[in-house]
């Protein structure tokens, strides 16, 4: 199903669409609807976390102090910067600036990998401190069960987020390959869709960072 037909104006369109505009709008709306699904997907685990956080406020605050706020903060900056580069890439794509677009996409990719690198390093430190539930969790202080619950949520939430990052980076790597060959010269919708997704993953982190790292006072 990759037969394309050309209409009088604009780039080739898949067979079942009338024109480029219809296809573009459908794709954009499709991504927005997918992100709505994602909001509810993350929403469920956020709700669960906040319910326990209100039940065990002091314990969760204490547990939060064992996270590395500095790494979280660096990662926040890294991700925000990647959001900027991806936004600029979309902009470059709309203006048919292929080289600039590819460059910005590569920058986004590098920043995304940097985020994962920092995150992995942080997990390593957590492991060293025996904070990984089910593997080596050991807690000297009071209320180990509830403290472990905090770390269970910390790992589930950041790992699901990291999984979204990994999917994003894989897609991006393939798209960079395509972009170099000029696949998006006529129609940069795909870059635009990727931008939406990447911003969403970024926003999830913007919620995760204060939820896990900052609400410790």
């Amino acid at each position: 199903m990759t037969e394309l037909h050309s209409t009088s104006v604009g780039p080739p369109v898949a067979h079942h669409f009338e024109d480029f505009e219809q296809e573009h709008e459908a794709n954009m709306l499709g991504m927005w609807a997918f992100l709505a699904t994602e909001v509810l997907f993350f929403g469920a685990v956020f709700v669960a976390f906040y319910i326990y956080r209100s039940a065990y406020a002091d314990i969760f605050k204490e547990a939060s102090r064992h996270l590395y706020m500095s790494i979280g903060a660096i990662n926040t900056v890294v991700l925000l910067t990647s959001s900027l580069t991806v936004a600029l890439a979309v902009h470059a794509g709309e203006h048919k600036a292929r080289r600039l677009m590819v460059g910005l996409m590569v920058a986004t990719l590098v920043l995304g990998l940097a985020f994962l690198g920092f995150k992995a390093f942080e997990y390593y430190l957590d492991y060293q401190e025996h904070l990984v539930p089910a593997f080596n969790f050991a807690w000297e202080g009071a209320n180990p069960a509830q403290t472990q619950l905090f770390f269970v949520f910390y790992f589930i939430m950041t790992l699901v987020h990291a999984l979204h990052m990994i999917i994003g980076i894989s897609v991006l790597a393939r798209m960079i390959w395509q972009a170099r060959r000029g696949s998006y010269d006529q129609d940069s919708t795909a870059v635009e869709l990727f931008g939406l997704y990447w911003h969403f993953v970024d926003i999830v982190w913007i919620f995760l960072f204060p939820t896990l790292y900052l609400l410790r006072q």
Partner: protein
Amino acid sequence: MSATAPALKIREPSYINAAYTAKSWLLTTDHKRIGLLYMVAITFFFFVGGLAATVVRLELLTPQGDLVLPETYNKLFTVHGVIMVFFFLIPSIPTTLGNFLVPIMIGARDMAFPRLNLASWYIFMVGALFAIVALIGGGVDTGWTFYTPYSTGFSNTQVIPMAIGILIAGFSSIFTGLNIIITVHKMRAPGMTWFRLPLFIWSMYATSLIMVLATPVLAMTLVLIAVERTFHVGIFDPALGGDPLLFQHLFWFYSHPAVYIMILPGMAVVSELITCFSRKPIFGYKFIAFSSIAIAVFGFLVWGHHMFVSGQSIYSSLIFSSISFAVAIPSAIKVFNWTATLYKGSISWDTPMLYALGFIGLFTIGGLTGLFLATLPVDVHVTDTYFVVAHFHYIMVGSAVLAYLGGIHFWWPKISGRMYPEWWGKVSAITIFLGFNLTFFPQFIAGYQGMPRRYYAYAPEYQVMNVLSTAGASILAIGYVLPLIYLIWSMREGEVASDNPWGATGLEWQTESPPPTFNFAETPIVTAEPYQYNPDGTFTPQTTLSVRQIKKEVAA
């Protein structure tokens, strides 16, 4: 009868005859073929789930547990619930009739995302594979509700593969819903305004909203279950600081709206059938259309009515109870409007109409008994008894399955190009209606008398009702097997169907039977409201023109 525009029909190969190889089916992006792929899959699951139900009913013929072991019984009702809910009812109408009809009804050549549509089917099948692995690996005994801490800490059965299977199938559901939403928004033919949409589309749209917004919550909940069970960390386990009620909240946040995923498509089908076989425009089009959206929206706010005795705050219970009463109003609107549609119609009793009328009756009973369950003190007595079992079977089987079968019969000529045998159709419709009532009405009584659900053995005073129920189930089973046989038979032997055997107004009837791969030879222009039927048999189809004709005329 108005003539349909010949320009819309150019005898090109139908979607069935476009190609015959297995590859042409398994790699198709044609929404109609994908609809049929789903139909084969869910029919299989319907009979697997039905088989489990048969053994359950036979076990319950006597008060003692004498046919299977209690472990086996628990696995059987779990298999029945999981398969029927996640692998039959939720995909049933949206993925089969919805897939087949949504693009045609709005005058599109395909779904907005055909490859995603095919991917959804494969995702569904992978989920189904996990479910089958879980069954072969020993089954699951948690009930379809997976309540913690039983499911995470106590059950020794294949909970994780089953949870993964449901999770994966859930993504299929999300993508199907997403596809339908975008298709309805962006793929409508010229002239197909929102208020010219057939009510089928309105209901499918409402269903899809629920699929997209509720299913991810279930997905995350199942992830949490799998993590807790695998790593023995206490997300919902009170011994480790967790709260089992949180699981119930998350589960029902999906699973109550999921009930509307099952029933709204049924309402979608019935709105089409009632008006066509009454030869009358639908009564109160906008009220029916908006009631679907209202059901979808309110459906998200009532999940706590499953938890009136769970230990949740009584003030929460009050709020959930009041909203649950409110959600009955849009359902009532539909029933009243369908009934009013019959008034001064010209009513034929063809098989699809029998199913539709049966649907209204059973849905009325199912809906009204839902109000019993919304009434707090009555719910305290009957929740988790056979009263609840009877109630939701009236909705999910009596209503949803009847509508599904009615829809299959109605659109069978369009799908297969052949007519089903009418006499056998009527026999099976009546058999199913009678068998269903005999199976499930006694369960209301057993429930009010206090017989708890999921009981392998029960107190002797409930035996009368259980014998009636099992007797009804045998009749029901015959009723279900009949259509399977004669529909398959009719694919080769049935009378060849005309393009519009019912004289219906929808766009799907203005193209060929079966339709060509891209549905219409040319993009149709919608020129009329839906359901312009007259009692004398005449009607105004929704389209008599195509885009190319208009262009030609303009050029001339």
